[in-house]
C-alpha cells in the first residue's frame, strides 16, 4: 500500500507537467527588449505587448530592417515584480539591448529604470501609468505611450462634476499601486475643484469573497457617484452588489475597467457604467491594420495595451531610423522633436517623456458595449 501511495505522488506531478509545452527565437543587429509579465496571473497584461512588437518588427524586417539592420526582439519576463524586474533589466542590458519596450507594471518599471538609466538605454512603456515615472524627473530615459494616472483622474473628475453634476462622490480603490494612485488624484481634484465633496474614501481588499459591507457604506454615504480606481474583477463584483441592492449610484471607473471582460462578467449590471480609456482609435488605419493582422496571425482579438504597444514599437523603430543610429541621445532628440504616425494618430513626446496627443476619453456601457461619450 505504501508503495502505491508514493508512486502516486511522482505520477501526479509529471502526468500534469507532461501535458503542456513552449518555444523561443533568434536574429541580428538592432536589439529591442520586451519586458513585462509574460507568465503568471498578470500575463494577460504583458503578452499583448510581445505580440504587438512581433507584428511591427515583422513588417520592418520584411522591408529590409532599419537602415539595413535587422531588428531582433529580446523577450524577458518580469512577472510584474520589482525584484524580478531588476534581474530582467540587467539581463537585457548585459545582452546589449538598444531600446526597451516595457515594463508593464509601474512598480516593476520603477525598479528597473535606474538600471537602464545607468546603461543609457531608452525605455518606453505601453502601460505604466504612475505619474511619478515622468513627472518626478528622475528617469530622463523613460517615455510612455499611455497617459498618466493624474490625467485619467482629471478626466474622471471633470466628467463626474461638470457633466454629470455629481455633488457627493464616493472614491473607492483596490489598495493597489494603480488603483490607489488614481483614487488619490481623484480625491485631490474633487477637493481642489470644490464643486463636489468626497463623502467616502475607502480601500477594498482585492479578492475578498463579498463586498456588501462596503456597498452598505456607500449607500449610507448617499453618494450620487462612485469613482473607482482599480481593475475589472473588483469593479464587476462591486457593481453587481450595488445593483442587486437596488442602488442606482453612478459608477465611474478607469482604464483597468474599460475592458470587455468587465461587461461580460458583470453582464446586465454593467449597463450604464462609465469608464475612461484611450480615445477611440478604431477608425485609425494603422490601428485597423494591426488589429486585423493580430486576428490573422494569432487567431484572436488583441489584448490589453495592444494599441499602446504597437505605438511604442512604431515610435521607437521610427526614431532609430530617423536618428540614423542607436545612440540614445540621437533617438531621444527624434522622440522629442519629430512626429510619428501611430495607432493614436500623430504623436511626439514632451520633455518629461509623456506622449503629446495621447489622452483619455469617457466611455459608457450601452447594450453590452463601451461607447464613447461625446
Amino acid at each position, binding site marked *: 500500500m505504501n*508503495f502505491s501511495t*508514493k*508512486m502516486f505522488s511522482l505520477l501526479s*506531478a*509529471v*502526468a500534469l*507537467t507532461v501535458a503542456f509545452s513552449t518555444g523561443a527565437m533568434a536574429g541580428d543587429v538592432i536589439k529591442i527588449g520586451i519586458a513585462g509579465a509574460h*507568465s503568471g496571473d498578470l500575463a494577460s497584461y504583458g503578452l499583448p505587448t510581445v505580440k504587438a512588437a512581433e507584428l511591427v518588427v515583422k513588417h520592418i524586417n520584411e522591408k529590409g530592417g532599419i537602415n539595413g539592420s535587422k531588428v531582433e526582439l529580446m523577450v524577458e519576463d518580469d512577472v510584474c515584480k520589482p525584484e524580478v524586474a531588476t534581474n530582467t533589466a540587467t539581463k537585457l542590458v548585459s545582452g546589449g539591448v538598444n531600446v526597451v519596450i516595457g515594463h508593464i507594471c509601474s512598480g516593476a518599471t*520603477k525598479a528597473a529604470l535606474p538600471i537602464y538609466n545607468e546603461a543609457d538605454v531608452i525605455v518606453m512603456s505601453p502601460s505604466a501609468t504612475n505619474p511619478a515615472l515622468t513627472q518626478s524627473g528622475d528617469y530622463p530615459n523613460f517615455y510612455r505611450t499611455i497617459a498618466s494616472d493624474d490625467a485619467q483622474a482629471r478626466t474622471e473628475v471633470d466628467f463626474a462634476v461638470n457633466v454629470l453634476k455629481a455633488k457627493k462622490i464616493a472614491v473607492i480603490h483596490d489598495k493597489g499601486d494603480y488603483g490607489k494612485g488614481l483614487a488619490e488624484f481623484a480625491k485631490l481634484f474633487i477637493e481642489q475643484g470644490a464643486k463636489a465633496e468626497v463623502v467616502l474614501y475607502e480601500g477594498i481588499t482585492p479578492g475578498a469573497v463579498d463586498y456588501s459591507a462596503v456597498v452598505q457604506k456607500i449607500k449610507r454615504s448617499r453618494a450620487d457617484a462612485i469613482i473607482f480606481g482599480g481593475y475589472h474583477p473588483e469593479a464587476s463584483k462591486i457593481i453587481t452588489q450595488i445593483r442587486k441592492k437596488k442602488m442606482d449610484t453612478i459608477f465611474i471607473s478607469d482604464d483597468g475597467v474599460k475592458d470587455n471582460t468587465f461587461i461580460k462578467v458583470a453582464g446586465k449590471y454593467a449597463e450604464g457604467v462609465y469608464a475612461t480609456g484611450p480615445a477611440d482609435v478604431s477608425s485609425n488605419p494603422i490601428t485597423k491594420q494591426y488589429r486585423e493582422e493580430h486576428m490573422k496571425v494569432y487567431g484572436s482579438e488583441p489584448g490589453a495595451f495592444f494599441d499602446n504597444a504597437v505605438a511604442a514599437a512604431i515610435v521607437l523603430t521610427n526614431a532609430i531610423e530617423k536618428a540614423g543610429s542607436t545612440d540614445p541621445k540621437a533617438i531621444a532628440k527624434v522622440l522629442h522633436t519629430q512626429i510619428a504616425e501611430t495607432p493614436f494618430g500623430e504623436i511626439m513626446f514632451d520633455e518629461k517623456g509623456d506622449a503629446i496627443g495621447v489622452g483619455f476619453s469617457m466611455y459608457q456601457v450601452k447594450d453590452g458595449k463601451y461607447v464613447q461619450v461625446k
Partner: protein
Amino acid sequence: MISLKDLKNAFLVSLWFVFLTFPLMVIKVNPFERTIDWRWQNMGYVAAGSFICYLASRFFLASKAAKQKKQKLLDIPDKPKSDWQQRLLSEPRLYLPVLGVILAILLIFPQIFSTYQINIMITALMYVVLGLGLNIVVGVAGLLDLGYVAFYAVGAYSYALLNLHFGLGFWAVLPIGGLLAAGFGIILGFPVLRLRGDYLAIVTLGFGEIIRLILENWNDFSRGPSGISNIPRPGFFGMEMTLNQSISYLYYLMIALVIFTIFVVNRLQNSRIGRAWFALREDEIACQAMGIDKTRTKLSAFSLGAFWAGMVGVIFAAKTTFVNPASFTFLESAIILCIVVLGGMGSIIGVIIAALILMLLPEYLRAFSDYRMLVFGATLVLMMVFCPLGIISTVRRTYTIDKNLKTSNDREDYT
C-alpha cells in the same frame, strides 16, 4: 522487475487520473462566445503520463527496497544513509579543500559571468541568508513562523525610509535594519510565543499580513502601494560606480554577509543558547524542566532569526532601489520556509544548498516560465514524500574528551 500486476495497476491509475483531470484538462468553455473546446489530446497526455510515472515510481521504490533487503541480508547495520555526508562535513581534512575550491569559484564568479548572472547570484545569496535566519526559528528552535517576510519588509522599509527622511546611508542602516527587525521580533514574540504549533503559525501569518497592509494603507508613512523609489545602492567610500561595478560590489558584499552569517549562526548553534534552542524543538516540557527559560529562549530565537531578515531587507532595498508592499507577500514567507525544510531542518549546509537550488533553478528554467511554479509546487511535494528529512539532515557536533580529565577537581566546582 515490472510484473503484470504493475501494468494492471498502472492502467487503473491512469484511468483514475483521466477521470480526475477530465473537466479541467479536456473541456475548455468560452462563456462569451458560448463555445466549447474539447481537447481530447490532453486526455491522451494525462493517461500516458500517469501510466509512465506510475511504473517509474514503482521501479524506483522497488530498487530502493531491494537495496535495503540486500543490506539486511548482509547484516550491514542500518547506518544513516548520509554517512559520507557526515564524514565530509565533520572532518576538516575533507571539507577544507572543498570549501577552498567553492570559495575560489565564488570569488572569481563576477570575472567570468555576465552582470545578469551576478545579479541572479545576489538574489540567491540573499535567500541563503534569509534561509539561515529562518532556520534559527523554524529549523533549530522548532517555532513555525509563517510571517517571516514581515521582518524582511521591516528591514527594506527601514532603509528606504531612513534614507528618504534622514539621508542615512546603506552602511549605517544595515545594522539598524537588522536591529529594528530583531526588535519587531521581540514585540511580536511577547504576546504570541505562548501559543503552540499551528496557532503560532497562523498568528505569525497574520502578523506578516498586518505589516504588509499597514505599509499599503498608511500613505503618509510608507507612501502606500506606489512604493519608494530611487533608493541609493550601497556606497564604497563615496566612490562613483558604474552599474556593473556596483553589482559586482553588491555581490562581494553578499558573499561577505553569507560568510558572516554562516560564521555567526554556526557559533550560535554550538553554544549554550543554540543547545537550548535545539532542546526546545525536541521537547518543550523537558527543556523547561532542565532549567531553561522557555519564553526567553523563544524570544532570542525569534529576534535573532528576524535580525537576518532585517539585514537582507536592507540589501533588498539597495539592490532593487525600489520597495513596495507587493514584494512582501505570504508566498515569499512560504518560499523561505520551503528552503529551510527542504534543506533539512537545522542544517546550515542543507539550507544553503536548498536556497541555491530553489532560487537558481527557476531562473535557468526561464524557457519553461509558464511551468515554473507548477514544477516548484510539485518539487516540494515530491521532496517531502521521498525525502522528508530534507537534503542534508542535521549534523550534531561531536566532542572528543581527554580521558585523563581530573574529574575529582571538577567535582569541587560542581558543588
